[in-house]
């Protein structure tokens, strides 16, 4: 597929929590050609904010996509001021997204032997339907799990979602609507379990065949270590400061067992085992 920068129409853009916005964009071209875990680049109009802002796909519908973003700086501030009906510059989907298909187990076995003398930890049957999948999200990593949860359900898996926030949770109703097991934690204890998602996981042991995660790097690192110990695979969606957001500038690399890889075009999803967490 060729890639493009599109001018698409915003169908809604609303505040859903303090400093958190949900934007829905009419774009059959994106909606029909993307997978969970992929992201789009949003291009601010401001002349001084030059670079694109990568935002993950939160919901994928027939003709619409939904993005959920936090206002952290000038770019996201500008997006939060956009109104319904306005057009915005947005790229076609970027990155590889979460691997949810049967092809996954094959890729896993390839990745798990990279360290010399290491025994592969995964068989080929990992992703047969009916598996227990755990999705772990932290803060602005939670949005991309919405689309993922929906896709995994349609594949016949059992889904447990654990998401952590600072004080105020969001997107809870989206997960509840999917009828899955949902566990919420807040750092402040204002809502749900008091503590981080990792605190929760360690305090409430459960069995899971597979993990997916998106959130701050320390959380992903801890989860990857946990999964390694439990010998369970985990896919993590990594974040890095980007330049181009499409693979041309080498700005956004992630250190992996096989050297630096571009988060924007070779990620953002990597296997926990693949990432060199201590580089």
């Amino acid at each position, binding site marked *: *597929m060729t890639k493009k*920068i599109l001018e698409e129409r915003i169908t809604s853009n609303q505040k859903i929590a303090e400093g958190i916005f949900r934007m829905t964009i009419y774009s059959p071209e994106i909606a029909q050609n993307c997978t969970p875990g992929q992201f789009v680049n949003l291009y601010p109009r401001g002349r001084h904010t*030059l*670079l694109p802002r990568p935002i993950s796909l939160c919901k994928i519908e027939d003709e619409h996509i939904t993005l959920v973003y936090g206002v952290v700086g000038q770019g996201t501030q500008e997006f939060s001021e956009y109104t319904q009906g306005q057009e915005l510059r947005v790229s076609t989907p970027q990155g590889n997204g979460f691997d949810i298909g049967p092809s996954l187990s094959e890729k896993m076995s390839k990745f798990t032997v990279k360290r010399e003398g290491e025994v592969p930890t995964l068989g080929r049957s990992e992703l047969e339907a009916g598996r227990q999948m755990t999705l772990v999200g932290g803060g602005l990593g939670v949005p991309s799990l919405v689309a993922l949860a929906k896709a995994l359900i349609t594949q016949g898996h059992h889904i447990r979602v654990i998401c952590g926030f600072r004080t105020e949770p969001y997107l809870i109703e989206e997960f509840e609507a999917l009828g899955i097991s949902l566990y919420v934690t807040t750092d402040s204890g204002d809502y749900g379990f008091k503590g981080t998602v990792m605190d929760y996981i360690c305090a409430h042991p459960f069995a899971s065949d597979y993990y997916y995660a998106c959130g701050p790097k320390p959380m992903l690192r801890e989860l990857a270590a946990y999964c390694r110990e439990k010998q369970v695979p985990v896919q993590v969606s990594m974040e890095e400061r980007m330049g*181009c957001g*499409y693979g*041309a500038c*080498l*700005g956004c690399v992630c*250190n992996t067992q096989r050297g630096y890889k571009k988060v924007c075009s070779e990620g953002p999803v990597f296997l926990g085992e693949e990432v060199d967490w201590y580089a």
Partner: protein
Amino acid sequence: MLELRDKQDLRVTIAGITFSNPITTASGTFSAKESGYFYDLNELGAVITKGVSSHAWEGNKTPRIAETYGGMLNAVGLQNPGIDDFIANELPWLQKLDTKIIVNVAGKTPEDYYTVVEKLWHEKIDLLEINISCPNIKCGGIGFGTSPKMAAEITKEIKKRARQPIIMKLTPNVTDITEIAKAVEAEGADGVSLINTLLGMKIDVHTRKPALFNKTGGLSGPAIKPVAVRMVYQVRRSVGIPIIGLGGIMTGEDAAEFIMAGADAVSIGTAALLDPGAPIRIKKELIAYMERYHFNSIKEIRDGFIDL
């Protein structure tokens, strides 16, 4: 309209190599594979590759990118797979294109540069761009580009070993860029390209840390354009060899400005990060500019400059 377009001659000649048009891709901001998803690479006058060194370089740790007012800082640190990998995996791809190929060469020591140009001896490429101006590596690189004596020396030695014409890429981080340009011309450089990035820094006052892992980085984008235009203008009046002008070119009119200042061709860098199809858009805008003022060739634009 159509007749006019037909009359326009966008061709430019650099060191005996004729490009179909003056638009090239700035080193480090272009990937044949990834940029090729957005536009037809054959529309370019030439592709300029990411810097290639004698061995694989890891590059710097992240964050490597920071945005600044009207520009950006990068400290990628010349991550590249090395010349052997480049020749095996990337070059064949570029050679299928119907455009000129300029390989950007990076080094920390003189020997690094020699290895690369010698390995490219038998390869079908058109020009070499020698980066003696990267601010993001600790030794070498920029060191060769900040002293006229060292710039002259490295030019002379590379010229002996290279089969293709060499274009020396100059740094703006010097007191007088014309001294460096004159020094490399005297030792046989076939052209110069300027400017590389300006050394800069950004501190995030919320985290109270440098925005880049490397602390300092190279500033590029529209913020540096006036500096680049001034330097192209000065160098044009100091040397006779061709100039590839770059630094903050965002539009066709910016390209025309560089040509008036004295550039024979231009490179598009940062603009392609925020608009992947920028090189082609800029080419179209340059044509529109030429139509508007009835310029029929790139030379006519250059000669059209009224330097009172």
